[in-house]
């Protein structure tokens, strides 16, 4: 026999219930073991039941459930260099693309105008994005970066000496999945660059960063002059805490 049913379309899918407990055992040399325990109700109280070892697959399923917006799966493009949790590191090969500046009155004359933009050559770039960081460095050459690749300060305004991008009013994409890489690139390269961020040299160029970009926009360079990049004395592997070959 059938029965009529009544539903309320105010989904409670956002509600999470205490179902399991994970106990984590750390070893001295970085080893770890986790056990998963069902939560049972005994006399109206929640108790931790007997557990079983958490398999790598169960750990990955749990990680996926915890990081829905950063879940990775499927083929990876060759520009993706590194992934760990919600951190994704990718490379943008050297290319010519449009860049726009909006500088203050003080530098407008030296810059050749308050607002300028044009298609110019760019160096190779390495971006890192996660829920907490958004950083960028420059790399030399046209080859895909490896852990041994030296990193350089990006020559752009609005990025500090540690590669942190000043977000300002730029809306950033939600999530750090492979599909969002183009959106992250656009969020950076299609925003207005307004001012150098903090102390430190952006470029090794006579007259400094304003002079360099004025001449770039004036079309002085057909290829990006890599000699102007400032070495940050760090490799990509060093940044990520890994050494070449690991």
């Amino acid at each position, binding site marked *: *026999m059938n*029965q009529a049913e009544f539903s309320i*379309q105010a*989904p*409670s899918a956002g*509600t999470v219930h205490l179902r399991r407990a994970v106990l984590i055992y750390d070893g001295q040399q970085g080893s770890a073991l986790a056990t998963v325990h069902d939560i049972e109700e005994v006399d109206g109280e*929640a108790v931790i039941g007997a557990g079983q070892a958490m398999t790598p697959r169960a750990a990955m399923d749990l990680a996926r459930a915890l990081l829905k917006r950063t879940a990775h799966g499927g083929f990876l493009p060759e520009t993706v260099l590194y992934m760990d949790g919600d951190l994704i590191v990718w490379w943008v090969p050297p290319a010519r693309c449009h860049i726009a500046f909006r500088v203050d009155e003080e530098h407008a004359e030296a810059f050749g105008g308050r607002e300028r933009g044009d298609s110019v050559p760019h160096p190779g770039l390495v971006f890192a994005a996660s829920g907490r960081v958004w950083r960028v460095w420059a790399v030399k050459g046209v080859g895909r970066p490896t852990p041994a690749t030296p990193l350089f300060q990006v020559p752009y305004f609005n990025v500090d000496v540690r590669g942190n991008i000043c977000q300002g009013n730029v809306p950033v994409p939600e999530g750090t999945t492979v599909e969002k890489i183009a959106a992250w690139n656009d969020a950076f390269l299609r925003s207005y660059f307004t001012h150098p961020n903090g102390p430190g040299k952006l470029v090794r160029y006579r007259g400094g960063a304003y002079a360099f970009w004025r001449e770039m926009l004036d079309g002085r360079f057909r290829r990006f002059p890599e000699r102007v990049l400032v070495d940050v004395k760090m490799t990509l592997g060093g940044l990520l805490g890994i050494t070449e070959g690991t």
Partner: protein
Amino acid sequence: MMALVLPRIAPQVPRTIAPGALLAANATVSRFLIEAEAFDESDIPATWSDSLDACRQALDGWLKRQIGALHCLKPRFALHMVSSDGDYYRYYGGQPPKDFDFDAMEASWCECHEQEWPVGAGLEALSARVPGLGSVILHVLRRQSAFVYPLFTPDIACDVATYLYWCGEEDEEAALDMNCGEDEEEREAMRTEMVSKATLEACFPAWTRRWPRGLELAQCARFLRRAIKHQSDPSAKAVAEEALALASLDIDDSFRHDIDGEFVGFGAVLSWTEGDVTTRIYDDLLNLAHQGEYCEHMGEVRVPLDDPGAFGAWQRAMASRFEAIRRIDRLIHHLSAGN
């Protein structure tokens, strides 16, 4: 010896965590239903952790009590939250909308799983016992189901066929002219493939293909009373009594849906014989409807959040419709011999 005790989780650890926006939305709906006195206290589950789910269970219990067990139909009633702009509250696992301006609740109903029920043999058997009884019962079914639980009956199948296949004409000739011109061979090939007028005539008796103009419920009721009085066969008598009870219900179109687009909210497909052309026409109608705007709600009511009493009034007004659903279900069950 130390007793073995399972480790307890401190009461400070929450057993359930819900996004704030969702909690606010749930609380609004729960308060609305309680103020509407939408269910009895006894319908509320003894223990619950989610007020909205408790309300849903209570409403579900109330509905099941109202309609009872069914043989053929499986109605689904739903309650939606609606904003002042008329938008529905939608949330599928991402962040619940934060600035949703709740304004009203909308109740609607539809069939969960419509199926084909062949009723031809049952109706013909009744007409063999009492001439005209099958025709009257079919008319009561389609007339009384129209505003509460619409059925896809042979007359609707024939009507749909005219605009699905025949360009709105009385037969397929205009469609053949349009597609094949004067090419007789091509016309015959297409006629064989398509649902033609001959297909419908071969499938449904003439008295099922058209809505009998002028036949009112009062006349049907008089006919059924006479049939019951003179009928000795208990099965035929039971069907006529069921139809009479259905015909006696006062059902208007108060809660008609207000949705543009093709109507496909049918509760069941009443074919004449199993697997006949009715289901093909029904499927083609669904395919056409799903290419644009369509409506699959049988009825709906929108109640402002600040007028919970109107929801209770709707519940009371549904009593005769619930009875109709129950009786429509029993009639289909009788006529299709429980298939």
